[in-house]
């Protein structure tokens, strides 16, 4: 008799417990699936979107407002000449396979990233590091070859996370990091599950399980959200549905900003784009607001230069390229193209490019510039446009934070080669003083706007659709990540 009561009681308890526990799991959908799970050997942002801050951590990391906060390094000391950084690591940190995390692992990770044969897609981030030394188990000393004001910022990137030699073999399929979540399973083409790390060194995560689902098709995304198959859709791909979701009490819509400057990249070495008057003409032919309304259904902020408007150092230069088709035609005539000309417009898959491209083509046609649109998949785009530089115009969003430095690379795909700008960038890299940095950044923004290097369209917004009860999601995307460590369900 007692046994029966006990059995019933425990059964009930389990049912109640399961009921309470069900709300500690979450399913988050995103568009792109990672090709593999090693953030230190690929630039596919999707890898970071799943693993950054969840499974892997670096010495420093991004907070939700974009600031750099301590990660595995609890504190640091910078020498006066700016060449030596001494980091104090957190104590009692273990990797998910049980091995301890210490200075040797940091040395291993950084040396691996900056090695000759490294497959790290952001090797340039580590270029100024001359030596990494494990002073003792919890102290790391990094010596630079030249002062670099962005070192702490660079170390927060997903490409700089700390990995372990013991688990490096299989990192692409079975990632082992130090984060609040452990990698559990990957069903190729469908989902990746993470589970709570009970031995996490810092504040434990609130959720027990996170399932990342990959849905690239906008129609599928719509169906999945409406059917309540997913709890969150981070980076929802069809902005035309946002009003519907806003009106639906089941959902909350969070629109944040990203570091994605969406630009009309122009091949500066290909005639007639080598003529600054032609580039200026194009800038005046473009109506940014029409593009934002037509392609993004109103989501996005216009930009006048290659810098994020939410950044305090941003300078609003949109007036330099205001919509003025008459002026555009006049400038073209001055440059000797009164009859206009024809060029290629190659577009990668995202809808901001495809839709934005059609709109820009129509606007350019108004001033006499004919464009041949070619829709490319990412592989072809990388081959033809990015590597081969075989294009006239293209549209792409550069999502890496603080990447104005790309304009200092003469062989970068838009082929802008200006000694003045390069000098400014070198000065910026060496400069650590915030006031001087701000001044330099302003100068640099004005330069690339005045030279009309590219058509600066808008800053990409990121709409996230979530069920009403989800809390703690990041609004903005200062880096590609879906930090789930502070996410939970409201009671």
């Amino acid at each position, binding site marked *: 008799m007692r046994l029966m009561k006990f059995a019933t009681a425990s059964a009930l308890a389990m049912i109640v417990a399961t009921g309470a526990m069900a709300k500690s799991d979450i399913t988050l959908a995103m568009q792109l699936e990672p090709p593999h799970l090693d953030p230190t050997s690929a630039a596919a942002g999707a890898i970071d979107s799943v693993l950054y801050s969840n499974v892997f951590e670096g010495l420093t990391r991004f907070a939700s407002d974009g600031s750099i906060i301590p990660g595995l390094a609890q504190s640091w000391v910078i020498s006066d000449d700016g060449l030596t950084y001494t980091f104090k690591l957190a104590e009692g940190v273990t990797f998910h396979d049980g091995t301890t995390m210490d200075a040797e692992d940091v040395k291993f990770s950084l040396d691996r990233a900056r090695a000759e044969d490294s497959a790290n897609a952001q090797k340039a981030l580590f270029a100024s590091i001359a030596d990494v030394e494990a002073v003792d188990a919890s102290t790391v000393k990094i010596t630079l070859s030249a002062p670099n004001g962005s070192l702490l910022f660079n170390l927060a990137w997903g490409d700089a996370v700390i990995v372990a030699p013991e688990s490096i073999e299989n990192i692409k399929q079975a990632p082992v990091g130090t984060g609040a979540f452990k990698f559990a399973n990957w069903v190729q*083409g469908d989902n990746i599950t993470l589970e709570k790390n009970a031995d996490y060194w810092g504040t434990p995560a609130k959720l027990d399980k996170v399932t990342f689902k990959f849905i690239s098709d906008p129609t599928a995304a719509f169906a999945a959200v409406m059917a309540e198959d997913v709890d969150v859709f981070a980076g929802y791909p069809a902005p035309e549905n946002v009003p519907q979701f806003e009106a639906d009490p089941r959902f909350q819509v969070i629109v944040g900003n990203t570091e994605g400057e969406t630009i009309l990249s122009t091949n500066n070495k290909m005639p007639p784009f080598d003529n600054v008057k032609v580039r200026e003409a194009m800038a005046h032919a473009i109506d940014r607001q029409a593009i934002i309304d037509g392609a993004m259904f109103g989501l996005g902020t216009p930009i006048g230069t290659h810098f994020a408007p939410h950044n305090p150092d941003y300078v609003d230069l949109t007036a330099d390229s205001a919509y003025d088709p008459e002026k555009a035609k006049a400038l073209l005539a001055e440059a000797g193209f009164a009859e206009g000309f024809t060029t290629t417009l190659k577009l990668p*898959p995202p809808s901001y490019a495809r839709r934005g491209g059609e709109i820009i083509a129509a606007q350019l046609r108004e001033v006499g510039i004919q464009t041949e649109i070619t829709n490319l998949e990412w592989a072809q785009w990388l081959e033809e446009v990015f590597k081969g530089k075989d294009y006239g115009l293209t549209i792409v969003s550069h999502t890496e934070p603080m990447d104005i430095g790309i304009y200092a690379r003469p062989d970068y795909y838009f082929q802008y080669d200006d000694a003045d700008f390069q000098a400014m960038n070198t000065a910026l890299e060496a400069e650590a003083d915030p006031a001087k940095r701000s001044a330099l950044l302003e100068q640099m923004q004005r330069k690339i706007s005045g030279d009309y290097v590219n058509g600066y369209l808008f800053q990409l917004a990121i709409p996230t659709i979530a069920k009403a009860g989800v809390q703690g999601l990041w609004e903005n995307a200062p880096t590609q990540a879906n930090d789930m460590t502070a996410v939970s369900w409201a009671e």
Partner: protein
Amino acid sequence: MLRFVAKRLISLIISLVVASIVIFLFVEVVPGDPAAYMLGLNAQEDTLAALREQLGLNGTLLERYASWVGGMLRGDFGTSYTYRTPVSEMIGERMWISLPLAIYALTLSTLIAFPAGIWAASKRGSLADILVMGFTQLGVAIPNFWFAMLMVLVFAINLRWFSAGGFAGWDAGFGPAMKSLTLPAIALALPQASILARVMRSSLLDTLGEDYIRTARAKGLSRRQALWRHALRNALIPVLTIIGLQFSFLMAGAIIIENVFFLPGLGRLVFQSIAARDLIVVESVVMLLVFAVIVVNFLVDVAYAVVDPRLRVRA
């Protein structure tokens, strides 16, 4: 009979070899670079070269063809570039969606077409016949992906009887899994059923006009008895051929339908791998689909010859 089968078998093997060469040459022309795609926007040239070496993209054409075919014969379809898992595993998983879908669609199509065709033939010229002919005319003309979209609008979004797509998964149970395949199967089956019904009807009408039927009627069989006992069996022959051909259409149609309903089947896999420049997956899946069609055609030919001895004698 044996000579016939042997001849067709040789024909089959030649077809397979030629098909494999065509597919291989095709895919090698693909103008994208998998390494560049994987490494992304800011990758450096040296890391690209390193990855290209890792993925084995550096052998000669002949070497790569030989190793591909050799592998397939052993059941090894290679390893996917993008997912680093064996292609045979990926095919295996997707097969559990594409195959049931094809069978479901084929069954639906036959279940609708046979009665409709027989009914129309037996009531030739009547209202029933006109109705069937009318519906089949529509069924043949309607683009199946548009029909799918309309079904989604009515049954999924408005009535909420079905989900708008996606596959529930076999672990969710037979019922839910089949439910998620229902709208896609209907979309696939409709044009096929229409064609099949028309062929059934005309084939039956032809046989009903034959001499031996008149003899049977003269011997005292009713119209219905004549129909069922004699005409139908003979009318089935061309219908069987069509069913075999339908397999080819079903696979082609399934590629688009899988996209409309975002079902993770073989058709979608082809699309995704083409976009990802995953050469090995594209080659192997296309080869598999073509292999299936060629084999089914072969089986239909043999079945056809078994049923109709006249066909075994070839000029």
